């Protein structure tokens, strides 16, 4: 059985789609069979960030409405061959999705894939609820900023109460925290929330910290998941997060401001 992993946040613009693209590419690079589904019907972006927008013929709504077969809508990634993308529709809205239709798609994908990554839309309405309903695991993407933390807290409560696992009284959805756009310099100046403050409020195991990086925007515009840009700190941080997701131990990187003295590095590293 495939694991359904929902990437969600409540708030918009925090990096759900960037993280979905990077994370699913990273999992596929490790040889896992991965499909990433764009649930943001009406505001589809995942195909752009994955660089497959010119290859979209059918989308998830076509499949749900029986206008296309699932295999026709799936787009095979050209860089990592165990990765596929199921795009959202640009011309419809979230009402075109329904639970039975999504259930069927997930069931069918479960036969062929190890991981089904669901890229959730922002908000806590229908699209987001559908994206998290079938989740076995959830990656909650949060910026070190109060409104993002509040919204992530809210979505964690929704996951606890509205997911299928909660409804069936099964083991709860396994939650992971992914802090993105983390800027240690601004944290040091007190302009951004500290990592431990975010963790303290959300109380969810930390999967990774992605540093603020110019490479992310560049990669998005180029349609190239940032994790493939292996020289960059963001790519390395995503790769670490993928490793941790697969059970490896990796120390957190990129969470300290650079150009620190050797002593504060040695003595300040742990406590911070």
């Amino acid at each position, binding site marked *: 059985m495939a694991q359904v992993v929902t990437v969600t946040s409540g708030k918009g613009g925090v990096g759900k789609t960037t993280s979905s693209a990077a994370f699913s590419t990273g999992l596929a690079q490790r040889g896992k069979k991965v499909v990433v589904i764009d649930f943001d019907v009406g505001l589809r972006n995942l195909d752009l960030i994955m660089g497959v927008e010119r290859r979209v013929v059918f989308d998830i709504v076509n499949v749900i409405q029986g206008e296309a077969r699932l295999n026709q809508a799936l787009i095979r990634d050209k860089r990592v061959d165990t990765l596929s993308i199921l795009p959202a529709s640009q011309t419809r809205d979230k009402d075109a999705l329904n639970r039975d239709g999504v259930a069927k798609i997930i069931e069918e994908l479960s036969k062929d894939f190890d991981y089904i990554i669901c890229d959730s839309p922002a908000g806590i309405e229908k699209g987001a609820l559908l994206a998290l309903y079938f989740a076995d695991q959830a990656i909650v993407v949060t910026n070190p900023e109060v409104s993002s933390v509040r919204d992530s807290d*809210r979505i964690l409560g929704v996951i606890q109460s509205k997911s299928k696992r909660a409804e069936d*009284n099964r083991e709860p959805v396994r939650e992971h925290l992914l802090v993105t756009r983390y800027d240690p310099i601004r944290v040091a100046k007190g302009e951004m929330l500290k990592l431990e403050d975010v963790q303290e*409020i959300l*109380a969810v195991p930390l999967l990774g910290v992605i540093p603020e990086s110019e490479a992310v925007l560049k990669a998005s515009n180029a349609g190239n998941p940032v994790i493939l840009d292996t020289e960059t700190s963001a790519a390395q941080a995503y790769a670490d997060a993928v490793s941790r997701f697969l059970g490896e131990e990796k120390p957190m990187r990129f969470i300290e401001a650079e150009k620190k003295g050797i002593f504060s590095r040695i003595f300040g590293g742990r406590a911070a």
Partner: protein
Amino acid sequence: MSAAPQTRLEPFRLRGANFNLLVLRLLDPRAEVVVPAIGDQFRRAPGMLRHAPVVIGLDDLTARPEEVDFTAIVSGLRDLAILPIGTTGGTAEMRAAAQGAGLAALRNAGHDTAPPPPPAEAAAPVAAASAATAPVTTVPGEPAPPPAGHQRTTMVVDQPVRAGQRIWAQGADLIVTGTVNPGAEVIADGHIHVYGALRGRAIAGGTDNMQARVFALQFDPELVSIAGYYAVRDGYGDAPMGRACQVRLVGETMRFDKIG
């Protein structure tokens, strides 16, 4: 074991004790209806009733004893992490049927007058015995009996209360072992204890219990209210922000005192 050792030979002691328990009054005899309904209800307040002992109230059941599958109800409740321990009220046959599923028949000491004990000669010795030595289990009925101040039950929540969640301890005190996050709301008709950080709203004492208090180990709430009197951040005065604090009403003034 630093205390002076006393020679104790007996392996146990029997003592009477009073307990406040929640009563789950069955209105429908069918396990397949009752259990999902309870599951649904408590999913909205995660943590509520988790591992809580409950007594099953039989007074409202009109079904015949053989129509009620107590075994299914008990196992259904246990699956929801609710622990049924006994029954109260109902007919002797009904209680006997429930005993078959391991549910002890409890006598309601809260208000003896309410359920007329049907077979008088059977009930009387039990009452006499319990007055003397046996443990007495006090079960507050649904409309709380008059001296409610000392008879409140307590709801314990073991998970963090997150933004957008609202937990209401109806007719009860509320204990939250974790944090109450910004945007969350905890409401109790009695006291509220938060053993983590209180960052959301805490509303104690319902609308009229001016004796209720709010306790928090890390006091940083968006709003506190007792019996309808409330304060927001600007009104906390010299409260020990971020530290252990209790809030109570003195007259009509809210007082914030450092504790611990």
